[in-house]
């Protein structure tokens, strides 16, 4: 488990992990915090924030030097091993230990056990991806799976645990600036022609902008209007004061949401939407690529309407009558254009309780695991490339003025900016705090519950202190769950990964100032 506190953030996924542990599986947890997940681990590697690549490269080097590589797999199914080997050569256990803060022996143990295990999985979450070099971090883990052949086989694999009920489905459906549904390339003429023919409309030949690029374009005045569906950027964006400033300068903004969010308050027009998962029919896709049906259980309140109805009416107002298709009819159109969904009729989705893509035809059971092509003989498709990646520390550097590393994450009972989760009363919910190690508390002379001022290069907020023994000196933790009380994203940095567009929520440099002179 790498950069994932699944015990809290994905509790039912972690039930399955626990079953494995009860059956004798070994678990290593890589996390700056000794999290609720790390407490179940055989070995916890308490990495310094943003040093994942040095750790992964050192593991790779150790596997190579100990002769534990899966040479036959590397030879048959991969390319680029020599360049990778050269790139990790400087990362000896000692060098990596100095950079990551993880004892050399723990790195060695992880390398040996991962490589020797008959089956092994690498699971990760936002601890890997909410960095300015998110994609490189992921590649560093992929390299390890290629070294050992722990990919594309039953019980082995690369497991990014998705954070939202349909973040996978959003990508699958083409809610990406460079892809049509089914991950088909926008800039591929043949593909684009297929969609143009089906939709009866010319389509832009170039990729669009992802969220971070859109904010840049809005900032520069290149993009003047925005249509936001089910997102709350006025609270969820890193460096959120800047984001709000950008949104305020737009000519026109439409927000479609189930609530009057902070973003909706800034809008020119608000479309009240139904809650997709309980008030409309449709599909979502989970972490395991499983497409499942969501079903309408009750009528939406007031004037709230199904997202697709709103979009159909909007099209009508723009002079295009698309009729009144049911959710199933929309899905069937998708199936006709996206080969990986072609075999997933509503009937089959209902009967089978969901199907994992790709599922090319109605006799296909769905794919249990991806990349099995790497094990066929000869391999199906192109070999999997090793990708050498270099260490790049967090961009928001620690300094004398900002000596503490703030990282963010979720708590068990809450979710993102709280739009959904503040709706229910949780007996285990405390007021939002800044969590510090007891050592830092002592050094700063602050007591538990004391309100402190938290200062980053972008913003200043106040929050009460809580001590967490799972944190080491120099590391602080906060969540984005209660932005109305403690607006954590005033502090975070909007440095983002040029390849994925993900902002570096996990690594902010802060200092903590006392407000009162006496400890309460």
């Amino acid at each position, binding site marked *: 488990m790498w950069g994932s506190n699944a015990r809290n953030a994905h509790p*039912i996924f972690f039930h399955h992990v*626990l079953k494995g542990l009860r059956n004798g599986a070994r678990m290593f947890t890589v996390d700056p915090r000794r999290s609720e997940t790390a407490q179940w681990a055989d070995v916890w590697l308490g990495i310094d924030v943003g040093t994942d690549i040095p750790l992964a490269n050192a593991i790779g080097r150790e596997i190579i030097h100990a002769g534990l590589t899966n040479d036959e797999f590397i030879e048959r199914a991969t390319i680029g091993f020599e360049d990778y080997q050269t790139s990790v050569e400087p990362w000896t256990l000692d060098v990596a230990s100095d950079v990551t803060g993880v004892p050399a022996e723990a790195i060695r143990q992880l390398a040996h056990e991962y490589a020797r295990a008959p089956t092994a999985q690498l699971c990760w979450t936002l601890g890997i991806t909410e960095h300015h070099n998110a994609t490189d971090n992921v590649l560093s883990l992929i390299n390890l799976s290629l070294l050992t052949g722990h990919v594309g086989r*039953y019980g082995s694999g690369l497991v990014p*645990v998705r954070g939202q009920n349909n973040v996978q489905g959003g990508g699958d459906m083409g809610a990406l600036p460079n892809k049509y549904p089914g991950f088909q390339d926008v800039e591929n003429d043949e593909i684009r022609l297929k969609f143009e023919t089906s939709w009866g409309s010319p389509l832009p030949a170039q990729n669009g902008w992802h969220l971070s690029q859109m904010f840049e374009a809005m900032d520069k005045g290149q993009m003047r209007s925005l249509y936001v569906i089910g997102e709350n950027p006025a609270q969820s964006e890193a460096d959120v004061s800047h984001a709000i400033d950008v949104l305020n300068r737009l000519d026109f903004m439409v927000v479609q949401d189930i609530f009057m969010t902070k973003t909706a308050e800034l809008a020119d027009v608000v479309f009240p939407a139904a809650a997709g*998962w309980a008030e409309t029919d449709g599909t979502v896709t989970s972490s395991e690529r499983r497409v499942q049906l*969501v079903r309408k259980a009750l009528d939406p309140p007031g004037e709230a309407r199904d997202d697709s109805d709103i979009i159909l009416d909007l099209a009508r107002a723009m002079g295009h009558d698309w009729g009144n298709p049911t959710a199933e009819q929309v899905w069937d159109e998708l199936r006709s254009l996206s080969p990986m969904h072609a075999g997933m009729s509503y009937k089959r989705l209902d009967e089978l309780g969901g199907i994992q893509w790709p599922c090319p035809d109605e006799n296909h059971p769905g794919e249990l695991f991806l990349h099995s092509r790497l094990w066929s003989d000869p391999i199906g498709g192109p070999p999997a490339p090793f990708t050498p990646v270099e260490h790049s520390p967090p961009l928001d550097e620690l300094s004398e003025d900002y000596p503490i590393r703030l990282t963010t994450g979720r708590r068990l009972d809450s*979710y993102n900016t709280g739009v959904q989760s503040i709706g229910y009363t*949780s*007996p285990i919910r405390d007021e939002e705090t800044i969590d510090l190690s007891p050592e830092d508390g002592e050094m700063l002379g602050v007591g538990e519950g004391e309100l402190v001022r938290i200062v980053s290069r972008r913003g200043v907020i106040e929050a009460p202190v809580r001590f967490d023994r799972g944190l080491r000196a120099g590391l602080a933790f906060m969540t984005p769950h209660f932005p109305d009380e403690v607006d954590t994203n005033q502090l975070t940095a909007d440095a983002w990964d040029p390849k994925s567009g993900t902002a570096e929520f996990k690594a902010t440099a802060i200092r903590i100032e006392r407000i009162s002179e006496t400890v309460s």
Partner: protein
Amino acid sequence: MTTFDTTTWTRIEPPARKVKVSIDGEDVIVTEGATVLDACRQAGVDTPTLCYGDTLTPVNACRVCVVEVEGSRALVPACSREAEGGMEISTDSNRVRKSRQLVLELLGSSVNLKLAGMKHWMDRYDADAGRFGPPGEPAGAGERDQAQPGHHHDVDGATAATVTEPPRIDNALYMRDYAKCILCYKCVEACGEDAQNTFAIAVAGRGFEARISTEFAVELPDSACVFCGNCIGVCPTGALMPMTEWTMRQAGTWNEEEQTITRTVCSFCGVGCNLELHVQDNKVVKATSPEDHSVTSGHLCIKGRFGWEHIQSVDD
């Protein structure tokens, strides 16, 4: 060792052996490893269960499912006994009927079984829960928590001892009515190794004083409880209940016949847990998860089980 089809890399299950047993004189062939209860179900023989759960390890606590096995001195619990080739099983012999009757009478006299779904079994076995006398004095709030092992009260012989005590309401999400608790252990197992691994509750005390308890009987918010509600999901008697259901039952507005149950997918993280939304008068009144769903096995987290209220929140 798992074996695979090396062209598709799908798992090949080893061929399962079959065993033949006889149930009430009829031959039934089941897969090796199946329980007597599985065999009974396959044979279409209805069997009462309380402490058994499809997703839990059997604990053999309630004894309501006992059957007679030829050659076995004692009656055996169907839910945990593995079916063996040649077993001759009787599910409706005099011994079985008497035993089930007594179990139901003892439970019924001491515990409120109103929501346990045992009525037709009590009728079938002519179980008279009142035959030990009228119910004794209920315990006061917290009184049973103080019971010490070995300190038994003398029985008066005229009334039936009960576990009745006031409902425990100490948080906004779910309540505990231990007057309905038969000590089946299901909640303990779901909170423990069978699912949640939080270990917030266990059985405290001995004999008739045994009861489900948090550490030192502290209130739930002060305990290790993480409010996943997986204990509610497995409770067979209604001793554990979401506050929404409890409140409506108290007000007399809970109406299961009016409710629809719709299966959908939870709106929070990306694990894909299936939810069953119980809806009455266009309002969600409870969320559960289907036991046969491979992702959840019926279990949820606090957000999935209780975090749906935002869709029917009303502006203050």
